[in-house]
């Protein structure tokens, strides 16, 4: 809504598509939760499958941010090609990890793919942030969108990793991720609502290590 009102809907189409998908999946999760309960198989299946779809949406949204940052270099084709190639590579790697499983292969693959895509997304966001600093990108809105995405990917990658390191914490994983999920739409709403497209800042001031 904020992007639509500020006439940035088409410019950040995939980001908005992700938020729309998030709203639809949250409604679906709520309906299934109310009908079948938190510990039901229906809820778990719906949760993990919708999460995988949303992660892929977010991954493509990230690729459009790359296109924005590298727009002057006319590198859109390379970004699209790299995005698809990396997604295919991550899917293959995820399949190789779960291929030994005898049961629930597809479900395990879906969970593994989400988990790996969060980490790939995190690394790609970090590379994008480094490019922003290097290219001295000054668009405040774009910078805030990228940084909030970085915070979100880090939180989710960490929560999945904690679950693998210490499995008893798995029970808290879904509610925790649900709380984290609210961060991204709020941060993006702030960026679209409060920051005009023409707002500029020096990104070198934001680096943790001063440049």
């Amino acid at each position, binding site marked *: 809504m904020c992007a639509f009102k500020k006439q940035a809907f088409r410019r950040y189409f995939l980001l908005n598509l992700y938020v729309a998908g998030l709203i639809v999946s949250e409604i679906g999760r709520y309906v299934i939760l109310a009908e079948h309960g938190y510990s039901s198989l229906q809820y778990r299946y719906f949760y993990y499958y919708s999460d995988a779809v949303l992660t892929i949406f977010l991954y493509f949204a990230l690729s459009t941010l790359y296109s924005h940052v590298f727009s002057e270099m006319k590198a859109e084709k390379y970004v699209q090609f790299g995005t698809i190639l990396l997604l295919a590579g991550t899917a293959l790697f995820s399949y190789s990890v779960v291929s030994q499983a005898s049961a629930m292969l597809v479900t395990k693959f879906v969970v593994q793919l989400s988990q790996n895509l969060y980490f790939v997304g995190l690394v790609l966001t*970090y590379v994008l942030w480094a490019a922003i600093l290097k290219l001295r990108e000054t668009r405040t809105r774009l910078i*805030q969108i990228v940084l909030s995405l*970085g915070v979100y990917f880090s939180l989710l*990658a960490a929560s999945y*990793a904690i679950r*693998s*390191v210490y499995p008893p914490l798995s029970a808290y994983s879904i509610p925790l991720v649900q709380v984290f999920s609210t961060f991204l739409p709020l941060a993006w709403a702030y960026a679209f609502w409060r920051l005009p497209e023409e707002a500029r800042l020096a990104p070198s001031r*934001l680096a943790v290590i001063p440049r």
Partner: protein
Amino acid sequence: MMASIILVCSIVFLLQFFVSYCRSLIAASIKHPLSAEVQDVTGIRNAAAGDDFTRVVQLLHLCPDRPEDRNGIQAIGAYFNLLGFVRATIARIAPSLKAWTERERGQCTYFAAVTLEKRIAFSRDMFAQQLES
């Protein structure tokens, strides 16, 4: 082993992104000059001090809440606490880090004061609208 590496990397990246995100929020607000009225209320004249942060946030909570501010002020509150932790631990050994945390804490206070000003303006608009209707 792999999960542990991912966990460590995620935490390091999270800290970097979080600090940069908070600094981008502050940088966007730092150009906003404070009105004389907010300067009087908060006691901020030239430079904001980190020690005033809690008091300014208390004043902020007296004003009607604006949903679009909530995320930013919570993030800056968490950043302020993180700076407090760094100041109380690592910065004791490194004096340059102590000066940096002080400066950052002051900017957090300035961000809170700018948010306070926006909330006051918002409350005035709401009051004016109620009077008109």
